[in-house]
């Protein structure tokens, strides 16, 4: 049985690798066919990574909370607190303290959420919504109180603080860049990704990777993680086994807030170098969406954030009409492939619907040269919706997620 399991995991891994290869090849093919070189250029991918990271941080934050059974829609607010924390502490004490400050502010937001939901049993959504309102007011107030008289500051903004250093891996970066420029089928696409990952990468981006991997390890490979997850699956059971559920929930929600706060720091220290009230622009919500999209798994959250970051990055590129047009082709191809899979598993109707959509996209692709800018701006949202609609039915959230829990109710 155990070997069986391992064998299955192994085939699963192979399938995943094969699929990944197929995806890369398709992208390369679309690039060559449509001539939209920027589809996998290092610049585009780099923009995608930068756009993805704050969302990823929020998403992983959401993951922490929800794995412990607390829905944290206050991510947006905690992220806002993080933007202020990063700016304030970075201004006065340098970028590293700024990071801590952002995490600390987010953590405070998380603490508030934990007090409300865990100790007082308030509905998670209500508490989250309230935290978002409070946070926006609070950072507006804090900015007005603390930034107005600073040099480079104003009542709603601050700049002129030191940010985090960038890292370029010598050699690899240049090599990858030059290969990427040569437009070789598949090779250049991969090189583009390598270049994006080795050129002018912020220290915080590296930290994000560490944090994501660390989260996956901590939550799935350690006793601590097991206990934390058990609080999201069946807190009563955890309680009967001596787990202090309140404590784990508190820790989880506070860490969640801290992650969101770091997401805010990413916005004020990497994605830009200034603070503005309300600059998160809903990225906390998007992070939540990425987490649900990612089926409450770190790898899924990464995928969701990257997809979002990629489309968002593209929507900001100049002259992106043709680029988005080539995405139409790409999606149509994936849809057709998916339709075939569905057809094979006897879901004829679904397959038909998907195929029909794919054909429509192909027609659109064939009849235009460029997608109008109003639509390119919507790309991230439309594509997320689309992907969810096509593949979103298999999601499973932690069993006790969002449910109230009271100590002593076991048995």
């Amino acid at each position: 049985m155990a070997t069986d399991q391992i064998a299955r995991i192994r085939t699963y891994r192979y399938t995943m690798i094969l699929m990944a290869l197929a995806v890369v090849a398709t992208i390369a093919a679309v690039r060559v066919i449509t001539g939209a070189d920027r589809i996998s250029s290092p610049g585009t991918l780099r923009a995608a990574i930068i756009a993805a990271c704050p969302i990823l941080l929020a998403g992983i934050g959401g993951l922490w909370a929800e794995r412990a059974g607390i829905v944290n829609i206050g991510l947006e607010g905690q992220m806002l607190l993080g933007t202020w924390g990063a700016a304030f502490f970075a201004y006065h004490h340098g970028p590293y303290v700024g990071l801590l400050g952002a995490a600390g502010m987010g953590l405070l937001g998380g603490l508030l959420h934990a007090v409300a939901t865990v100790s007082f049993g308030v509905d998670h959504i209500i508490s989250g919504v309230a935290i978002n309102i409070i946070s926006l007011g609070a950072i507006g107030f804090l900015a007005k109180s603390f930034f107005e008289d600073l040099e480079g500051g104003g009542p709603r903004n601050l700049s002129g603080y030191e940010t985090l250093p960038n890292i370029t891996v010598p050699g690899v970066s240049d090599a990858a860049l030059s290969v990427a420029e040569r437009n070789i089928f598949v090779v250049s696409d991969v090189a583009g990704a390598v270049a994006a990952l080795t050129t002018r990468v912020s220290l915080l981006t590296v930290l994000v990777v560490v944090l994501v991997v660390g989260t996956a390890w901590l939550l799935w490979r350690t006793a601590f993680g097991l206990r934390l997850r058990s609080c999201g699956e069946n807190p009563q059971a955890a309680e009967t086994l001596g787990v202090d559920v309140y404590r784990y929930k508190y820790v989880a929600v506070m860490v969640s807030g801290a992650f969101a706060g770091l997401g805010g720091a990413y916005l004020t220290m990497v994605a830009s170098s200034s603070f503005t009230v309300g600059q998160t622009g809903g990225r906390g919500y998007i992070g939540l969406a990425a987490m649900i999209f990612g089926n409450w798994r770190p790898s899924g959250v990464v995928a969701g954030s990257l997809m979002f970051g990629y489309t968002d990055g593209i929507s900001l590129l100049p002259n992106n009409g043709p680029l988005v047009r080539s995405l139409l082709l790409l999606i149509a191809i994936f849809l057709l492939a998916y339709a075939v899979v569905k057809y094979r598993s006897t879901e004829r109707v679904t397959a038909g619907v998907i195929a029909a959509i794919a054909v429509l996209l192909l027609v659109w692709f064939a009849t235009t040269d460029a997608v109008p800018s109003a639509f390119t701006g919507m790309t991230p949202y439309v594509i997320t919706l689309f992907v969810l609609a096509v593949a979103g039915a298999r999601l499973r959230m932690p069993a006790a997620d969002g449910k109230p829990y009271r100590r002593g109710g076991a048995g």
Partner: protein
Amino acid sequence: MTSIEVELRGIGKRFPGVIANHDVDLHIAPGSVHALIGENGAGKSTLMKILYGVQSADDGTISVDGREVTFDSPTDAIEAGIGMVFQHFMLADNLSVLENIVLGAEKRHGIGDRARAEIEKISGRFGFGLSPDVLVEKLGVADRQRVEILKVLYRGAQLIILDEPTAVLVPQEVDALFANLRELVADGCSVLFISHKLDEVLQIADRITVMRRGTTVGTADPATATKRELAELMVGSELPSPDTSESTVTDQVVLELAGVTVRGDGGRAVLSDVSLAVHRGEVVGIAGVEGNGQSELVEVVMGLQRCSAGTITLSGEDITDLSTRQVRDRGVGFVPEDRHRHGLVLDYPLWENRILGHQTSAPSVRGPFINARGARADAQRIVEEFDVRTPGIDTTARALSGGNQQKFIVGREMSGDPILLIASHPTRGVDVGAQAAIWDHIRAARRQGLGVLLVSADLDELIGLSDRLEVVLRGRLTARFDPGEVTASDLGAAMTGGADA
């Protein structure tokens, strides 16, 4: 393994308004099976939770091996060598067997391969046959229970508390469980065992303690005690029995299933080619080990599932493709298997719960509007006729005990003169008094011509109440018995496929 001796003395526990335990004395000898019996609400679970540190006692002392101890949390109890399997399983479905077991005891063998080896070792020793990496959601009840016991053993417990472990098991599984328990005792463990089922208690226990209204009222020796004596100790009166007196079966078919097949996720048939008829005035009992298709059978009749083949007719009308509401509209009452999830809206008052499932029929509604007055009056009627113990119809369903909730549901489903009642485990977890009341009502309605499709895990109930028994095994009806002639063990054998019938 050395066993521990546990002694509870003068335990008292008050909840606001209720005295759940008072002056409870209990002595558990090392290396024995000790049974604790008592009717619903007698205070058994509360006592066990105190012993396991989930709740703390207001009075009294606990001593282990002669030393007085206080348990502030389960952790303390676990350390003292006590483990507990709760009445409602405490498992996380989405975690693996291994994860469920090592949770909270990660220090013992980590959460990796060492733990896996240890689990396999214990599982092997007691013949549990559990594989550590399977998700718990994939397991049946019996296996889940083994996981629960494994959890306790993994922590090195020497006293294992089992709160109503047999309620959800079929006889063969009960036997297997008892075999496991005996091995455990042979290994030096003690077992504290709670049950409502007296024959089981007599069969397994070395010592019996009876609780009534929050206190221990006596002990008995299973070698000499009889069921009758125990019952009298428990309730102060005789046990009712579900015997059906005279047959009221007619030849008018109410419900007929012809070649019904239901496919579950992934296309596997969970019900194949089932044909069955229920007549007016007839109770047809469905016996089967849980997960063999009886839930699907109920759901497909109620329109909660669709069949991929076959037809269902109700009094001659084809209802195969009708919705649940349409089926109910045609006079079908439904006592669902899980009253909390399907039978009631726990936070609604009783009178609003009266409307549930009857949103289309008088007296709870008038046209498209709710008739609050009608619903209230009828809820009051149910409370009186079915002896639902509640201060009033504005009390939320949640505040009622399980037995009273169930009586209310049965009363509701029998109102409006249904022609067919689909009853799934109508008396599960209900105390003997309420059980008898529910049986009486079903019998009375049957005399009036009600057809009943009864699914139950309680074989005595099935045999006593049914006019005909069908055995469902792996989605097929495999045997048919006359309840007047069949014994529980025959039935059990048929249910597990152990006999050719």
